[in-house]
């Protein structure tokens, strides 16, 4: 292991490129540029954040309650960082989704701290000549923001961001082409307009957040059913493949949610999982028998990490636990490690002992057996 303080004598030629994209930070593991998903606990699971150029696939819970919150966090983070946004949804009107983003709790806090420091300045006269502490810089470079689910983000704040919504209404040729191809074309146009492609030599100052809600739901196509086979899947898989290619070759990230509980053929889900970089699945307890299990009474569902991408590395980030749960508090949603208490109660161990020792005692006792039986 090389020492912590040791500095390599090798340096890259040319000057180091300083990335000045708001809301982005380089990964500590592999110098990838990371973006926050809006949920610190999810960022942690993904290895610090979502690398620019990757796709996160979220498998929706049955009633699409919690997966929608994930999507809103992701979009709200984009609004706070001033990223370009592209949201596509057929199930839910994208306008409604954008209008119900969680409120940010950062700005008020920052303003408060700024006013208090000003007051302190007047008292501590020796520091009056000093420049004010750079609070604004710190907040501009903040990686992730805090959100409050009780409030909704103000309209003018959302309106400030360059947003494109896709609800399929402008697609005239839906009967012949479906919605996948028109959406892909629109995303491509957005990337070209923003100059986000890596082929474009301009210095990048912003990134685009793509969000596709309820992909492959019955409104997109009939892929989920058991009657349709490859000739129909082809449209969906082609779309995701094209989307991946677009995202890889540009400064953008993508979050896709799919109603995987509808899928009859698991092979379709496997294909989608193979095409995405990160795959997580939400399994809510709403209406399932797990809701009544006392182990889960504090939580709202299980969080499965299906796939983590290994970008620029050989292995994906290692997680320190396998069972995760999510819980919706009043103001925010968190993902936590699920601890199952070990089975140490006496009744359990004794019954195991009995089953083990019984045949032994019978075999060993042999001739003693009649003596112990008293009549």
């Amino acid at each position, binding site marked *: 292991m090389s020492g912590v303080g040791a500095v390599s004598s090798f340096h890259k030629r040319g000057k180091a490129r300083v990335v000045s994209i708001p809301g982005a930070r380089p990964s500590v593991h592999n110098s990838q540029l990371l973006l926050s998903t809006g949920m610190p606990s999810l960022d942690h699971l993904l290895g610090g954040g979502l690398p620019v150029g990757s796709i996160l696939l979220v498998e929706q819970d049955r*009633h699409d*309650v919690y997966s*929608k*919150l994930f999507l809103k966090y992701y979009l709200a983070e984009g609004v706070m960082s001033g990223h370009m946004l592209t949201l596509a949804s*057929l*199930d839910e*009107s994208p306008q409604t989704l954008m209008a119900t983003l969680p409120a940010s709790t950062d700005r008020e806090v920052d303003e408060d701290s700024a006013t208090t420091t000003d007051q302190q300045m007047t008292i501590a006269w020796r520091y009056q000549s000093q420049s004010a502490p750079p609070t604004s810089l710190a907040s501009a470079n903040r990686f992730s923001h805090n959100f409050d689910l009780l409030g909704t983000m103000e309209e003018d704040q959302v309106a400030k961001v360059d947003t494109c919504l896709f609800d399929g209404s402008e697609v005239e040729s839906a*009967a012949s082409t479906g919605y996948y191809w028109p959406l892909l074309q629109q995303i491509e146009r957005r990337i070209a307009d923003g100059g986000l492609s890596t082929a474009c030599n301009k210095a990048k100052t912003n990134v685009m957040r793509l969000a596709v809600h309820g992909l492959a*739901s*019955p*409104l997109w*196509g*009939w892929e*989920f*059913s*058991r*009657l349709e086979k490859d000739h129909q899947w082809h449209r969906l898989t082609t779309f995701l493949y094209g989307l991946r290619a677009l995202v890889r070759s540009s400064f953008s990230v993508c979050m896709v949610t799919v*109603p995987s509980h*509808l899928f*009859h053929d698991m092979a379709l889900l496997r294909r989608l999982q193979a095409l995405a970089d990160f795959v997580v699945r939400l399994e809510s307890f*709403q*209406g399932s028998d797990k809701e009544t299990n006392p182990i889960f009474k504090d939580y709202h569902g299980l969080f499965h990490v299906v796939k983590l991408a290994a970008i620029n590395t050989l292995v994906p980030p290692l997680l320190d636990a396998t069972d995760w749960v999510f819980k919706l508090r009043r103001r925010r949603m968190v993902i936590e490690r699920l601890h199952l208490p070990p089975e140490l109660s006496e009744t359990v161990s004794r019954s195991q002992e009995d089953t083990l020792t019984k045949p032994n005692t019978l075999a060993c006792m042999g001739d003693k057996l009649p003596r112990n039986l008293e009549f």
Partner: protein
Amino acid sequence: MAAVVTRTVLDRLVSLKESPAPRLLLLTDTVEVCGRGLLYCLVCAHLRAGTHVLYLTTSFNPVELRQHIKDDDTAGKIEFYDGATDPCGWDSGESAECVTKSLPEVMRSRCKAGGKVAVVVDRLEHLMLHQDSGQLVRGLHTLARESEVEQVVVYCGRDVVCEDMLEAVTHLASGVLHLRHTQPCSCAVLVRKTSGKVIKAQEEFSLTPDFRVQGVKPTQNTGQVGVPADTSASSDPTPESLLAATTFSLSLTDEQRRAKNELLLPHTRVQTEGGQILYTPDQEDDWDEDDPDDDLDI
């Protein structure tokens, strides 16, 4: 989730007290139980509330339906789209537009006329014969999102409609009513609110002749479909039932019990004398209390 509020879920749903009312409501029945009564309940509730009802029928012709649903003295009026009399155009030479064209196209002209409307699709499975399923689902979804449309009620048999279609409509619907074959009549209710809350309930109900729901209460034992009472009794034997089945007498008369209680058994006599400890000291016992360790050879 227990639905022990002042009104039950089904009650609120059928009397349109649920706010906001589910935009897309799915009502299913099976061959054993008919959901038509509940459907008429919903239609009548809309008519009473002053909402115009656009009724697309594929199984009964409108004349027959009018005998059940009366709109003479209600604020809202009913309008029929006849897909039952001649859907394939064998008599007129032209197939009925209301079953072949997509739902928003059929209803749009009426929706735009102003006023709130409710759309009823009577028998989804019949429409599926004439339309592509994707188009049908999309049509339902667009219709439910129109601002003039109060509610879209889709009625189908869950055992005859294709499974994919049922799942697709259930996925999109914000309210689902599955009628169950029980005695008394009950149904499984699922309401997805816009806030994200999901309400699930199993409720019994009965219908009045003028199509109102009454006596709604939560079903006690969920999952039991009409199990007769006597079979459950025989499967769980009690001591009394076992005693009655034997050929010899195991019970005591009062006289016999008294005689049994008075009998003095050998061990009871010993117990009444009280106890004492008998101990014979061994030879090796050490009774010297001054030095308890003097037998130690150090």
